[in-house]
C-alpha cells in the first residue's frame, strides 16, 4: 500500500494495521525518516518537498512490486509526505511484514534505497543563507546499486 500526502502519519497505527487480525506474520521492520534541524552547518527553518503527482505513485508502486517479487512479504506500506515540513517532522515511513526477520529487514532497506533514487521527490531547504535544493547523494546511488 502506497500513499503520498501532506498530512502527518502515525507509524504505530501503520505497523499495527500490517499485522492486525493475522497470525502468519512473525516480523515487521519499519523505517521513519525525519527532517533534521541542521544542514550544511546551518540551522534549517523548513524543508519543502515537491513531487511529480501521478508518476510518484506509479514509481512507488513499482518499487513495492519489486520488493514483493524479491522477498516473501505479507504486506508493505510506504507513506511519503509532500509540502512544507519543520525540523523534527516525519517525512517517510516504510514498513514490511514477513514470516521472518531477514526478509522484513532487507525489504525495508531495499524500499528506502530505491525510493531515495527512483521516486520523483525533490527537497528544497530554507536556511539562514536562503533557499537551496538538496543535491542527490552518490552514497544513495551506491546503496541502491547493491541490490542489482
Amino acid at each position, binding site marked *: 500500500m502506497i500513499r503520498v500526502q501532506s498530512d502527518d502519519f502515525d507509524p504505530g497505527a501503520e505497523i499495527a494495521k500490517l499485522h492486525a487480525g493475522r497470525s502468519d506474520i512473525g516480523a515487521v521492520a519499519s523505517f521513519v525518516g525525519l527532517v533534521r534541524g541542521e544542514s550544511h552547518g546551518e540551522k534549517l527553518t523548513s524543508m519543502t518537498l515537491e513531487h511529480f503527482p501521478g508518476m510518484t505513485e506509479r514509481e512507488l508502486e513499482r518499487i513495492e512490486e519489486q520488493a514483493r517479487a524479491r522477498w516473501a512479504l505479507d504486506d508493505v506500506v510506504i507513506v511519503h509526505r509532500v509540502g512544507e515540513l519543520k525540523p523534527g517532522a516525519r517525512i517517510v515511513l516504510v514498513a514490511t511484514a514477513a514470516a521472518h526477520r531477514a526478509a522484513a529487514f532487507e525489504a525495508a532497506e531495499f524500499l528506502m534505497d530505491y525510493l531515495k533514487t527512483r521516486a520523483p*521527490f525533490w527537497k528544497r531547504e530554507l536556511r539562514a543563507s536562503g533557499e537551496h535544493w538538496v543535491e542527490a547523494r552518490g552514497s544513495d546511488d551506491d546503496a541502491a546499486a547493491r541490490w542489482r
Partner: protein
Amino acid sequence: MKLLYFAWVRQKVGRGEEIVDAPRHVATVGALAEWLKAKGGGYAEAFADPKRMRAAVNQEHVGFDAPVKAGDEVAFFPPVTGG
C-alpha cells in the same frame, strides 16, 4: 508534446508545464533537451549541463537516448532527493 519541469528545472525555465510542437528531427529525449536549450534564457540555463538532468517519458524513467514522439508527456528534473 507535453513537457513538465520540476524542482530547479521548473524554477529556471519559469514554468511547470507547457505544450510544444517540436520539429520532426527531435526524436529523442536528448534531442529535445538540445532543442529546448537553444531557446536561450532560462532554458539555456536549465539545460546547460545534461549530467545534472533526468527525464521521464509518460511517467517512466528513461535515458537521454530514449525516443520521443508527438503526444508523449516528457518530464525534465534533477536527480531525485526524496526519502
